């Protein structure tokens, strides 16, 4: 097996780890590609800087990378359709080069696009939360910094953990972030931030919120920011319901409120439940100062979904209100990018079309030796543990297909007789991988060329960069100081 993995985040490394440990003696080769020059995906570019323990998983990835059967190629974007072009200095590799050089393919490409709000288009007053996360992690597309010096009120639309992470970054005392992996330019702006209040706006109620208790507890514990107490009426209907353990614990944290009493702190925040944005009126552009915009909000109530009555949907009550705000951040989840692989994307689920680890056509036919794991396959849900479990399960499908079984479990292998995807169903070529590539070890010629021209980052390169980032950080009393592509290039050349 010569496996190309598209995307080098946790699901790629966990899948590779499981495949290699299930086949300790076999000559299999796994090449992980990522358009980012650094490996590990969201572990480096998504996990909040003040959650460094979550990043301990990279030690396992480092171990996996020591297996000579695994190679990593960073700064390479692979596409069948147009490349996303999100990172200007990427080397582009067409899918045809992968298909002719590899026997197996695993899409571990994640969900890289933010879901936008139809009533809140991006503008100077409205940005996706992902742009903020990319800003404070110094993502290689280098998004512009938010105008925090001119903003006192921020509205975050969406009630998931990304919302709480962004709120915490904006509210916490900057000194809290000093020891962590927050780039100096970000720290500098956070120190000059004029943010006073963050409203977290949720379309439905506390039971429907997607955030989890740990992150909520962290916000409640901020020493310099207090939460506006919730209306007790919010909790009345819950008395009559059988709540799960998770829900009960979450409601207790919400009812208890923030450690610091409301109004006793320089910064404040609120959870505005049952509010759905309907529009954002921008101030006239003649003003030289950044004056607030006006967010219009529809008030909502819960009604059971007509088709799935156990799911509660938001319905408008007819009431509306307005909120004066200087920055709206939409935090509504993520979807896979259809651009690089248009034929594989399922618009209904917003991720790739996958069945039990295999990429399938719209009619459910599997492609031989083509798989997907992690968020690309599941959608943007689940923390590291869930992604790990999925990656392990997909790895077992891959090995079972190759060897006939894994332990005592037989999965349904795609045999040569299985009806393969109909070319007419896909919008580009059928995925005909090469059963007998010329070379079972080397990457495609273009990759060898790219390596020679210092356009591609290997895992060994990454470990040098990693050590240098930690060294720079140590001089500043912090976990690491991130390097830019230019700095990385300069360091590797000298």
């Amino acid at each position, binding site marked *: 097996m010569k496996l190309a993995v598209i995307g080098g985040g946790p699901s790629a490394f966990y899948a590779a780890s499981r495949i290699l440990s299930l086949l300790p003696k076999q000559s299999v080769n796994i090449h992980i590609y990522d358009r980012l020059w650094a490996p590990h995906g969201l572990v480096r570019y998504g996990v909040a800087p003040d959650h460094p323990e979550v990043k301990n998983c990279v030690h396992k990835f480092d171990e996996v990378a020591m297996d000579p059967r695994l190679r990593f190629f960073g700064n390479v974007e692979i596409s069948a359709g147009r490349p996303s072009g999100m990172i200007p200095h990427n080397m582009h590799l067409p899918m045809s080069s992968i298909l002719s050089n590899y026997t197996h393919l695993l899409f571990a490409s994640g969900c890289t696009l933010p879901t936008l709000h139809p009533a809140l288009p991006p503008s100077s007053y409205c940005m996706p939360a992902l742009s903020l996360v990319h800003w404070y992690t110094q993502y290689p597309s280098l998004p512009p910094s938010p105008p925090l010096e001119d903003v006192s009120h921020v509205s975050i639309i969406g009630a998931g953990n990304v919302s709480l992470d962004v709120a915490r970054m904006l509210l916490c005392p900057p000194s809290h972030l000093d020891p962590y992996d927050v780039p100096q330019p970000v720290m500098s702006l956070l120190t000059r931030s004029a943010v006073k209040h963050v409203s977290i706006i949720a379309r439905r109620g506390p039971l429907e919120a997607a955030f989890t208790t740990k992150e909520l507890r962290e916000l409640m514990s901020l020493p310099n920011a207090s939460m506006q107490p919730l209306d007790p009426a919010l909790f009345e209907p819950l008395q009559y319901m059988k709540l799960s353990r998770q829900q009960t614990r979450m409601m207790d944290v919400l009812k208890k409120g923030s450690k610091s009493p409301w109004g006793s702190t320089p910064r404040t925040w609120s959870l505005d439940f049952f509010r759905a944005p309907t529009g954002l009126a921008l101030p006239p552009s003649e003003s030289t100062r950044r004056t607030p915009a006006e967010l219009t909000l529809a008030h909502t109530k819960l009604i059971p979904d007509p088709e799935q009555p156990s799911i509660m949907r938001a319905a408008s009550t007819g009431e509306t209100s307005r909120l004066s705000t200087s920055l709206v951040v939409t935090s509504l989840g993520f979807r896979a990018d259809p651009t690089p692989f248009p034929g594989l994307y399922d618009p209904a689920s917003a991720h790739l079309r996958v069945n039990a680890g295999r990429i399938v056509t719209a009619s459910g036919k599997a492609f031989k030796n083509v798989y997907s794991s992690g968020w690309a396959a599941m959608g943007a849900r689940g923390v590291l543990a869930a992604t790990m*479990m999925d990656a392990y399960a997909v790895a077992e499908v891959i090995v079972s297909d190759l060897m006939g079984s894994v332990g005592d479990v037989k999965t349904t292998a795609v045999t040569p007789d299985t009806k393969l995807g109909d070319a007419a169903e896909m919008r580009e070529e059928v995925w005909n991988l090469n059963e007998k590539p010329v070379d079972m070890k080397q990457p495609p010629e273009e990759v060898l060329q790219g390596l020679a021209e210092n356009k591609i980052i290997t895992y060994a390169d990454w470990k040098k960069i990693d050590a240098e980032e930690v060294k720079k950080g140590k001089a500043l009393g912090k976990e690491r100081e991130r390097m830019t592509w230019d700095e990385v290039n300069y360091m590797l050349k000298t």
Partner: protein
Amino acid sequence: ASRHGGVVRPEPGTGIKIHFNDSKGNLIKTVEANEGDDILGIAHEYDIDLEGACEGSVACSTCHVILPQEYYDILPEPEDDENDMLDMAFGLTDTSRLGCQVKLTKELDGMTATLPSATRNMFVDGKKPTHH
């Protein structure tokens, strides 16, 4: 704390006995460890397939184990941070704990730690996680 080499194997017959079972209840291995050793460290010392992604820092739920009621009751109550992680664990039960937080005492001699349902059940059950 590092999960590598943290556990010293006691002389056979002198240590605290722990049985590791798979999700179906079959014995994987019976091992011995010392007072103060945690279940995750012990599993790694004896090559038992218990993951510890965050390496014992209560930042994930991958070392989730299921204990018998009588041993679960002996242990001190989980703290908020452990309970927050357990909330997210796949196949959570009333006697679930994070392995990295279960420290051995002599009273736990003979305890069974059961690993939760195998990963491939995710495809069979069609389970999808709901939080991120």
